[in-house]
């Protein structure tokens, strides 16, 4: 299994320094520690291992350092801010790995934006030197980009002209949707390998400020303090995040609250997540005291890890079955307590964590079916996971209940901004509003009548129908299913976040497998090779 645990004490590639209200996160990639053999991470280029540390750092900032009010993302190398994803790594990676890598890096950058939007910690990107490709995409994920104006350092997205692919971490979308760069200027920028320096980068709004080298660090410090003064981040006592340890079993993974059973021959993974058991903290102070072992933190971090294991280590498991277990009322009570104290920084962070994990689940390129049987805990955030699934199979029994929880009222939004209730009831938004407001408990026949399940199966049919449904699903083309599911899951309007994933899944992934990129004479294949690329000039 892939170990996603990282710790600042043993980072190879980042330095995290907390300086009162300001956190400095400096990229200083150690070229000798690539995630896999076969390439060197030169010029602060990154791979999955580098990004795991970034993801870890952002998580720790959220939970361990509530006193931080501004984040400065910079470089520990004088001659490079960041050269982007390592090209040799991309060249030598399989297509599924590339896609999963890009998706993970996207989720990390969105988490950084979410940290600004919902935790109140704004980020400044201090671009001290060349900033290319994924490096600039990281900058775009920050609230402000400050570039050194030394007539040399440039921001750039050279993917199209140099590699024949697209920036894979939201660069194109963020330029026009987030920064609102005029489309024709964006067109020029994205086809210009060397990018833009100082004044022009500022004039065209690719950066927010430029500074002479001698004033650069002082200017960043000043700005960081200004932003800290404006921050609404509520402070408190941080809690330490312990490593997530799964026991690898013969059939899958076993965590405290999450079990994953892999049936390789059936291309099937069953995730079972358990609700809270025993006493739970009643408020933010209680959570501060209890720390990372509280169910509301640990179970969701475990699920997050399990989803990543499935993505990276079980590519052929095309079908994910979701089972929920536990006491429904206990789960709803945890959510009510969190909502009651949601102005507490830690309650806020816990809800944001749940929201991110639910979105990670939304974005699984796997078919996902939720099973709501007599033992199921289809309540609150677990009901959200069920609604996140492609289908819900419910068992027709009066012991089967669904409870809409207080977080379904917009606290756990999908990538495109809708609640899962609104996404489900696009045609009848009043029903979504009613459910969110009244948080009803539904029993078997109502579940079906109210449109909360795909099938309500008679106990006599349950076993056979479920088996056939799963067998049928896994027999279909995995590519077609991925495309279909991604198209159907996100109804309604798009936003910047959802476009990032949508376009990654569609355009970038298509281009990645086209001969013009990865064929024998494609630009990515030929990058750095003695001979230049040769294209098939037909437009598609």
């Amino acid at each position, binding site marked *: 299994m892939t170990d996603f645990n990282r710790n600042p004490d043993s980072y190879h590639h980042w330095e995290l320094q907390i300086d009162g209200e300001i956190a400095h996160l400096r990229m200083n990639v150690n070229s000798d520690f690539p995630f896999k053999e076969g390439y060197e991470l030169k010029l602060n280029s990154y791979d999955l291992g580098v990004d795991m540390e970034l993801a870890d750092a952002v998580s720790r900032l959220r939970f361990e350092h509530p006193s931080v009010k501004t984040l400065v993302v910079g470089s520990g190398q004088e001659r490079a801010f960041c050269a982007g994803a390592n090209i040799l790594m991309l060249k030598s990676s399989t297509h599924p790995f590339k896609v999963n890598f890009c998706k993970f890096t996207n989720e990390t950058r969105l988490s950084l934006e979410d940290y600004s939007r919902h935790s109140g910690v704004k980020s400044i990107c201090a671009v001290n030197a060349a900033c290319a490709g994924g490096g600039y995409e990281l900058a775009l994920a920050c609230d402000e980009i400050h570039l050194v104006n*030394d007539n*040399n350092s440039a921001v750039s997205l050279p993917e199209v*002209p140099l590699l024949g692919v697209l920036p894979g971490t939201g660069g194109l979308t963020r330029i026009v949707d987030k920064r609102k760069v005029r489309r024709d200027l964006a067109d020029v920028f994205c086809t210009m390998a*060397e990018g833009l320096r100082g004044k022009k980068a500022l004039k065209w709004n690719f950066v927010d400020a430029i500074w002479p*080298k001698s004033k650069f660090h002082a200017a960043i410090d000043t700005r960081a303090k200004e932003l800290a003064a404006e921050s609404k981040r509520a402070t408190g006592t941080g809690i330490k995040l312990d490593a997530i340890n799964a026991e690898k079993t013969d059939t899958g993974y076993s965590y405290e609250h999450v079990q994953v059973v892999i049936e390789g021959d059936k291309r099937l993974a069953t995730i079972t997540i358990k609700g809270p058991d025993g006493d739970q903290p009643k408020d933010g102070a209680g959570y501060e005291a209890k720390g990372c072992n509280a169910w509301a933190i640990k179970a969701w971090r475990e699920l997050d890890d399990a989803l990543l294991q499935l993505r990276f280590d079980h590519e052929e498991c095309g079908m994910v079955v979701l089972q929920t277990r536990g006491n429904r009322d206990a789960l709803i009570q945890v959510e009510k307590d969190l909502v009651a104290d949601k102005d507490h920084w830690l309650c806020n962070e816990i809800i944001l964590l749940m929201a991110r994990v639910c979105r990670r689940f939304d974005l699984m390129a796997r078919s996902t079916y939720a099973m709501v049987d007599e033992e199921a805990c289809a309540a609150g955030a677990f009901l959200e996971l069920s609604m996140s699934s492609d289908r819900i199979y419910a068992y027709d029994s009066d012991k089967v209940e669904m409870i809409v929880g207080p977080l379904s009222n917009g606290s756990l939004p999908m990538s495109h901004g809708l609640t899962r209730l609104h996404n489900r009831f696009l045609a009848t938004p009043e029903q979504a509003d009613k459910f969110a407001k009244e948080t009803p408990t539904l029993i078997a026949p109502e579940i079906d009548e109210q449109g909360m399940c795909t099938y309500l199966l008679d106990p006599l049919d349950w076993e056979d129908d479920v088996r056939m449904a799963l067998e049928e699903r896994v027999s279909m083309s995995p590519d077609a299913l991925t495309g279909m599911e991604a198209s159907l899951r996100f109804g309604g309007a798009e936003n910047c976040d959802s476009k990032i994933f949508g376009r990654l899944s569609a355009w970038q992934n298509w281009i990645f497998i086209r001969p013009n990129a990865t064929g024998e004479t494609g630009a990515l294949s030929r990058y*750095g090779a*003695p*001979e*230049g690329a040769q294209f098939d000039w037909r437009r598609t």
Partner: protein
Amino acid sequence: MSNVDLEAKIPNNVGLRDNKRLTMALEKWQPKFLEWWQNTGPSDFNQHDIYLRTAIGVGQGGWAHYDYVKMPDYRWGIFLAEGPSDRKIHFGDNIGEACWQEVPGEHRNRLRRLIVTQGDTEPASVEQQRMLGHCCPSLYDLRSLFQVNVEEGRHLWAMVYLLQTHFGADGRDEAEALLDRHSGDEDNPRILEAFNYPVDNWLDFFCFTAFMDRDGKYQLASLAESSFDPLARTTQFMLAEEAYHLQTGENGVGRIIKRTGELMIEGKDPTTVGAIPLDIIQRYVNFWFTGSMDLFGGEDSTNAAEAFAMGLKGRYRESDGIYKDPLALNIGYNLEVPTDEGTVETKEIPLRRAMNSVLQDAYIADCTRIVSRWNRELKKLGVEQEIKLPNRKFNRNQGVCAGYKFNPEGELIDEATWTKMHTTWLPTTADREYVTSCMVKVTELGKFANYIAPPAKGPNDQPIDFEYVKFH
């Protein structure tokens, strides 16, 4: 300034009179260049008459016109070497096609970068050397310095000509930026790190011209093969001038070595008479040779492979047909690469990726020749001690050996050995202070500072005691 004025001020063979776009661009740029020269060129010598060579044409003798001139009045000109109008691309993927007279769109950015990077070094070296005149060892050497400076200025013009003629508005912006960056300026430094340090003593200056300018020669030589014909012809002409700079460096270091040798034979300790011991000279040679090696870029370089494949940069003397395979495909190059296990392995890489290394090979052979000339001089005097060119792996901050420690013989060593030994291999603070203390200003006709021997002959066959610089 009218066309006619500009034409008279700027000797050229590029049809400046009829080139309205270039004329307009230069009308704006030339005053800025003069301002740059006044502010950051040689300090305090602009009012003196210097006996300088000015290029006024590309034909036989045309580029070697000598006369007294005040440096700000120097006629910086624009010249392309003459060549056949139907040159064919002679290496890379487009071999056999006609050379480009205009910049192909797909190579525009890369060519501009190459030209800007090359162009940036030209004014940079003038800035680095601006204080040297104040401690010149002789009028002869002072003149040499200024000759080098004005010609580096002309090389800047050559690159600016290409930018303004072939790269549109962006090219004009880049031409201005070449005057805006300054060597050692914290906020606006020169592009290459090595061009941001002052060269403020004459041993550094001669080593700089012997080694760094020689690197420049090889960079220019690779551009002189370019499929972009104006670039090829411009750099071919620059190479003729560059040869003089290398000569200045080679002879300068040689004369310092000779003087030290003479004193040693006389039984004198050079340090008691203001001359420079061979050990110190060796450390300076080690420093500058290795620093210049870093300017070639990585030994295993995808950039270099692309520049070759596209026909932008060729190998040294590629057009002389000295390489068997002008495509450089399907051949390997054996590169020595240090490993973390403490060994050096020979790794075969595709030849195209090794183009920087191939250029280094030619450069090292050239450096080996100049060092052996210095040693012949020592031998003639009866001195046994020799100057040695260090191994290419020693003291490298760029390329495959960066981050590893090698001794000057090219053996991989550990950190402890390096810490113990490096002061015997590279100039120490004490060395630098001592060399600085030797820098006395000598301006009497025909006289030389005691650390340097007179040259064999003067420029343009003038006597050694000629008044090369007239002070006013």
